[in-house]
C-alpha cells in the first residue's frame, strides 16, 4: 500500500427498509432468507458507495449485525458462539437498554460466522474487503459470565473461538482482518497484559494483516503499552479529542513496525467536518508518523449517522486526503 491509505472502521447506517425488516424478523413476521436478501442488497449499496467515494480498503458495513458483541451471542438474525446467549435487559444510560450477553457454558466455535457475508462483499469488488471481528477481551468484558472461574479463563477460551473464525476468513481469502477491542482500556492496570496475550492467541502464526480498533476511553492509560498488541495497525479516534492523542505520540514515538489508523471525522455528531480541519489533522499527524504508515479513517463505525451524513463524512475524509497527498506530492 502507498501513502495515506483510506479505509473505514466497520459499521454503516442501515437503510430504512433493512431496519424495518430486522424488526419484522425479530417479531417472526419475516423469514431468514428474506432478511438475508435485504442485508445483501444493503451491503452491495455500501460497497458501491465506498468504491464511488474512492476508499482503498473497504468494509462490508455490518448490515447483518445489530450489536458487535450480541451479534455473536444470540441476537436475532445473528451467529451465536456456543456457550453464549442473550440475557435480560440492562440499562446503559438514560432510557437506553440492551440485552446483555451471557457466557453460560464452555465457549466453542460454532463454525464460520462471518465468512458468508465477507465472501459475498468481496465478490462484489476488486478492492480488498476487511474481515471484521470483535476481540476476545471486549466480547467477555461486555458480557455476563455464569460459567468461568475467572475473567482470564473466559478471555483465553474466547480467543480460541475468535482464532478459529480468523482462520476461516483467511482460508476464504481475506488479506486484512480487523479485530476490534473498544473495551481494552476498561481496567488497564489489571487486565492489559491479558488483552495482549489474548490477541496474540488469536493472531499468532496466521498469515494475514491484522488491524485493531480502540476507540474513546482513556487511551492515555494504555499508550505506549498498546504497542505491544501483535497487530500491524492500531486505529484510534483522533478527531473526537481534536487530535490530542498526538501529544502521546510526541512523548513516546509510535512503533516503527506498525501502521497508525487515524480517525479524522467524529462519528457522534451531525456536524460535517470542514475539509480544511481534516487536512490540518492529517498534516499534524504526518509530522510524527511517515505517510506510508498512516491510514485515514473515520473515528469509529458510522452506524449512528444517517446514510447521507455517513457518506458526507466519508466524502470530506477522501477530499482532505487527496488534497494533502497532492500538496505533499505523495505517490
Amino acid at each position, binding site marked *: 500500500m502507498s501513502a495515506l491509505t483510506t479505509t473505514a472502521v466497520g459499521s454503516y447506517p442501515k437503510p430504512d427498509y433493512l431496519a424495518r425488516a430486522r424488526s419484522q424478523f425479530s417479531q417472526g413476521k419475516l423469514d431468514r432468507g428474506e432478511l438475508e436478501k435485504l442485508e445483501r442488497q444493503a451491503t452491495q449499496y455500501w460497497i458501491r458507495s465506498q468504491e464511488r467515494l474512492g476508499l482503498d480498503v473497504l468494509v462490508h458495513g455490518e448490515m447483518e449485525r445489530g450489536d458487535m458483541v450480541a451479534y455473536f451471542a444470540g441476537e436475532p438474525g445473528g451467529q451465536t458462539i456456543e456457550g453464549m446467549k442473550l*440475557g*435480560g*435487559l*440492562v*440499562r*446503559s*444510560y*438514560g*432510557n437506553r*437498554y440492551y440485552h*446483555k450477553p*451471557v457466557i453460560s457454558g464452555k465457549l466453542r466455535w460454532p463454525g464460520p460466522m462471518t465468512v458468508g457475508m465477507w465472501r459475498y462483499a468481496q465478490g462484489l469488488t476488486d478492492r480488498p474487503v476487511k474481515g471484521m471481528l470483535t476481540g476476545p477481551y471486549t466480547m467477555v*468484558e*461486555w458480557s*455476563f*459470565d*455464569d460459567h468461568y472461574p475467572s475473567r482470564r479463563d473466559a478471555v483465553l477460551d474466547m480467543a480460541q473461538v475468535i482464532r478459529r473464525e480468523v482462520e476461516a476468513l483467511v482460508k476464504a481469502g481475506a488479506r486484512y482482518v480487523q479485530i476490534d477491542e473498544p*473495551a481494552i482500556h*476498561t*481496567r488497564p492496570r489489571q487486565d492489559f497484559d491479558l488483552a495482549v496475550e489474548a490477541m496474540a492467541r488469536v493472531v499468532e502464526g496466521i498469515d494475514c494483516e491484522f488491524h485493531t480498533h480502540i476507540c474513546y*476511553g482513556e487511551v492515555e492509560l494504555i499508550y505506549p503499552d498498546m504497542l505491544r498488541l501483535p497487530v500491524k495497525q492500531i486505529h484510534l479516534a483522533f478527531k473526537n479529542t481534536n487530535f490530542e492523542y498526538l501529544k502521546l505520540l510526541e512523548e513516546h514515538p509510535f512503533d516503527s513496525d506498525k501502521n497508525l489508523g487515524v480517525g479524522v471525522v467524529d462519528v457522534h455528531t451531525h456536524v460535517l467536518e470542514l475539509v480544511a480541519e481534516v487536512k490540518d489533522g492529517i498534516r499534524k499527524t504526518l509530522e510524527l508518523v511517515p505517510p506510508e504508515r498512516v491510514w485515514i479513517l473515520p473515528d469509529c463505525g458510522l452506524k449512528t449517522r444517517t446514510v447521507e451524513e455517513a457518506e458526507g463524512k466519508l466524502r470530506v475524509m477522501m477530499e482532505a486526503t487527496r488534497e494533502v497527498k497532492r500538496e505533499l506530492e505523495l505517490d
Partner: protein
Amino acid sequence: MKATAVGSYPKIPNRPRPARLRQAIARLDRGEISREELAHVQDEVTIEAINEQAEAGLDLVTDGQVRWDDDQTYIAQRLDGFEIGGLVRYFDTNTYYRQPIVKRPVRWTSPILLRDYEFAAAHSPKPVKALLTGPYTLAALSTDNHYGDRRRLVLDLAEALRQEALALAAAGAPFIQLNEPAIVHTKEDAPLLQEALAKMLDGVKSETALYTWFGDAAGILPALADTPVGLIGLDFVWGPANWDELRHASFSKGLGFGIVDARNTRMETADEIAEQVRRVCEVVPAERLHVNPSCGLEYLPRETAFEKLKTLAEGVRRAGAVAV
C-alpha cells in the same frame, strides 16, 4: 444483622412483563404524555421496586432510585451551579452518565429527595434508607469549570448536601446513606473526604452510612472509619482486599458487607452467603452488620436482581440461625 440493598433497583422487567417506565419516558420524549403522567408511572414503579425488595426478604429497603438516571445528575441538576454535559463511562462499567459541569458556586436551594423519601416511606412495609451521593464523589465525577480547586468545590458541596441531609432528617428519615465510591479509586484524597463529611454531617441526627464500591479500602479504612458516620459499606466482591484491611484495622463501626455480586448474573447460593457472613462475624459482631449486594442492582436484569436479593436474605437468615 440486617439484609439491605445498596441503592438502585432495575427499572424495567423483562418480557412478558411490560417495560412501563421505559415506554413512559419514550412517550414523554415524543410529547405524548405530560410530566405529571410520567411522575405517576415513576411512583408506581417505585412501589414495585420497594415491594420486590421487601418480598425478597430485605429488612431495610431503598426507593430503588427509579427516578434517577444515575447517582450524579439527579442531585447535580437540582443544585444551583451545575449544568449537565456529555456522556462518560461510570468507572469500569459499560454504563454511562451525563457528566455534571460546575459553572458557578454550588448551592442548595430546595429539597431534592424529600418528596421521594416521604413517598417511599409512606408506601413501604419496611424502613426506607435515604440515599445521597457524597460531596467527594459528586465533585470527582463532575467537570469543574468554576472553582479550579478540588477542595473548595468538595467543601461547598458538603455544605449544600448538609442542607439536604438536614431536610431528610427533619422529615424523619431514620437512616441516610452517603455514596462515596470515588474515594476507593483516589485514596490519597481520604483526608479531604474526612473534612467534607465532618462538615456535611454536622447536626444531622439520623443514622448515617458511608458506602463505597468497585474497589477496596486497603490503606484508608481507618480514615473512612474516622468520619461521623455509623456504618461503612465495602465491596468484598470487586475489592477482596477488604478482607485483610478489615482484619487489620481496629474497626468499631457498623459494616455494610457487600458480598453478592451485583455486576454479574452468576447466582450465589444462600449457603455461600451464610458462610461469608459467619466469616465476617469473626471481625464485626452480627448486630453491627448490614449484608447487601456489592453495589446498586441496575447492572443486572430485574429478575436476576430479585433472585439475588432473595438468596442474600436467605443467606442472612441461615447465618443468623447458626449464630443464635
